[in-house]
C-alpha cells in the first residue's frame, strides 16, 4: 500500500510536534523512522494509525484519504500491551477471524472454526510459537509475546504493518531473532512496513530506507521535520532536504539487499 504524506503538521496546543512532513512510501517498502525521543516519530505513527488526527496536511493511502479510524488495512505492533492477556496465544491469533467472520457473536462454530484454528496454528508455527498455542501471554517471554503480537497482526492480512518500538524491551539476542522474523515476513507477505525506533543500528539492519525525524540539535520549541532520508537506491529526497547518510548506512543497507 502506497502511503503519501503531504505537508503534515501536528500541534499539541502551542507545541508543534511535527511540521511540514512530506513523504511518499511506496508499496513494499520497509521504512524506519528514527530520531531522539520526543521528536514526534511515534506521533507520526499514531497519525498513520488514525489514532491521532493531523493538525494540517493530508495523508493518502493508495490515493485515498486516510480513514478516520483504525482498520484492517493497517496492522500494528506496540512495545507493550499488543496482545490480550485473557486469551491464549491461539485465541489471540484467532481474534481477527472471529471479528471478521462472526460479526454478531464473535464466536466461530463447526467447520469455520476448525479452518480458522488451522490457519491460526499455521501462523503461530510460522513465527515459531507452534508449541505455545495454549499458553497465556503472561506465560510467554518478552520475545515470544512480541512474536505473538506480530502473528496476531498479520492474521488479519493487513497491507501496512506499523511497528512502534516493538523490540525496545527485548534482550539483544532475542531482538536478533525477532528482527529475522520480521524481515522474513516482510519478504514473504509483501507488506509495507513502517518501523519507529530510536535504535539506528536496528533501523540499519532492518529497513530499506531510513528517515530521520527531528535532530535539530536539541533546540527547544523547534518542531520536527524530516532531517534526513536515506534510500537504498539513489532516489531524491522529498523537499530536497539534507540527506543524512553516515558512512555505515548505505553500506549496511546494500549488504542487506544482497
Amino acid at each position: 500500500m502506497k502511503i503519501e504524506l503531504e505537508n503534515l503538521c501536528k500541534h499539541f496546543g502551542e507545541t508543534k510536534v511535527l511540521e511540514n512532513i512530506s513523504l511518499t512510501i511506496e508499496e513494499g517498502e520497509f521504512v524506519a523512522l528514527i530520531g531522539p525521543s520526543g521528536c514526534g516519530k511515534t506521533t507520526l505513527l499514531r497519525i498513520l494509525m488514525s489514532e491521532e488526527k493531523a493538525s494540517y496536511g493530508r495523508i493518502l493511502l493508495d490515493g485515498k484519504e486516510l480513514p478516520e479510524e483504525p482498520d484492517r488495512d493497517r496492522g500494528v505492533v506496540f512495545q507493550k500491551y499488543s496482545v490480550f492477556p485473557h486469551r491464549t496465544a491461539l485465541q489471540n491469533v484467532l481474534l481477527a477471524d472471529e471479528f471478521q467472520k462472526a460479526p454478531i457473536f464473535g464466536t466461530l462454530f463447526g467447520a469455520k472454526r476448525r479452518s480458522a484454528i488451522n490457519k491460526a496454528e499455521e501462523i503461530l508455527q510460522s513465527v515459531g510459537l507452534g508449541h505455545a498455542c495454549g499458553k497465556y501471554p503472561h506465560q510467554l517471554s518478552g520475545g515470544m509475546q512480541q512474536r505473538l503480537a506480530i502473528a496476531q497482526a498479520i492474521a488479519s492480512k493487513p497491507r501496512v504493518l506499523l511497528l512502534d518500538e516493538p523490540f525496545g524491551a527485548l534482550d539483544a539476542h532475542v531482538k536478533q531473532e525477532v528482527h529475522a522474523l520480521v524481515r522474513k515476513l516482510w519478504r514473504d507477505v509483501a507488506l509495507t512496513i513502517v518501523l519507529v525506533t530510536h535504535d539506528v543500528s536496528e533501523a540499519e539492519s532492518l529497513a530499506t530506507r531510513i528517515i530521520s525525524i527531528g535532530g535539530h540539535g536539541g533546540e527547544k520549541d523547534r518542531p520536527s521535520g524530516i532531517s534526513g532520508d536515506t534510500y537504498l537506491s539513489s532516489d531524491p529526497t522529498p523537499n530536497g532536504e539534507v540527506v543524512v547518510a553516515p558512512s555505515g548506512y548505505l553500506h549496511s543497507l546494500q549488504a542487506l539487499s544482497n
Partner: protein
Amino acid sequence: MKRVINIEPNQSLRWFLILVPFVATIVAYMLASDARLDANAQDKLLPSLSTIGNTIYRLAFVADPRTNQYLLWVDTFASLSRLLPALVISVAIGLVVGVVIGLVPTARAIFGPFMDVISFVPPLSLLPILFIAMGLGETTKILLLVIGITPFLIRTMAMRVGDLPREQLIKAQSLGGSSWLIARKIVVPQLLPHLLDAARLSIGPALLFLIAAEAIASEVGLGYRIFLVRRYLAMDVIIPYVVWITFLAFVMDAALAMLQRVLFPWFQGAR
C-alpha cells in the same frame, strides 16, 4: 537482626498466628462473661458460652412453638433470598452500564457525571420514599440493596475500562473489531474478574442495607430477628446471629475469590 519487613513466619507458625486473634477474642469474651455472671447470675449482657450454645440449639434444631418453624434457617433463607438476587441484579447492571459508560464517549458524557453525583445520595435516606412508593414488600427491600450498591459497581467498572491500555483498543480495531465485538471479546472478559472483586467489596454495604431494611419493615430475616429480640436484651440470640451473618458474608467472599481463580486463570499472572 533482620528488618521486621523481612521476617516471614514459616507455615506452621503462620497457622498459629492466624488462630491467635480468634482464640484471644473468645477467651476475652469468656473472662468478661464469667466476671459479670459472678457479680450477677441474672446478667443478660454477656451470656456464657453454654447459654449461647443452648440458644443456638433451640434456634436451629427446635421448632418455634408459636410458628412451628426453625427460626435460624427461616431467617437465613429469608435474608439470603433478599441479598443474593439483589447482588446478582446489581452486578449485572454494574457490568453493563459500567462498560457502556467506560467505553462509549457519548454515554460517558451523558451518564458519567450524573452517576458521580447520584452515587452520593445516601440510600437509606431513600428508604422512606421507597416504602411510600412501593409498599413494605420484598421488592422494596431488594430495591434498597440494589440502589445501595449499584452506583459503586457502575463507577468501579467504568474506571476499570479506563484502565485498559489504549494499545489494546487500537489493536482490536486494527483487527477489524466493531464496537460491539470489542466490548464483548476484549473489554467484558477482562472486566469479569474485576467484577468479582467489586462484588466481594459490595457484600459489606449490601448487608448494611439488608439489616436496615429488615429492622424497619419485615416479619422474618436475620436483621429482623436481631432487632426483635433487642427488646428483651436477648444477647444469647443477638451474638450468634451476628457471628452467623459474619460467617455467611465471609463464605460468600471466599467463594467469589475462589471463583475468580478458577474461572480466570490468566488474571493473577497478567497483573
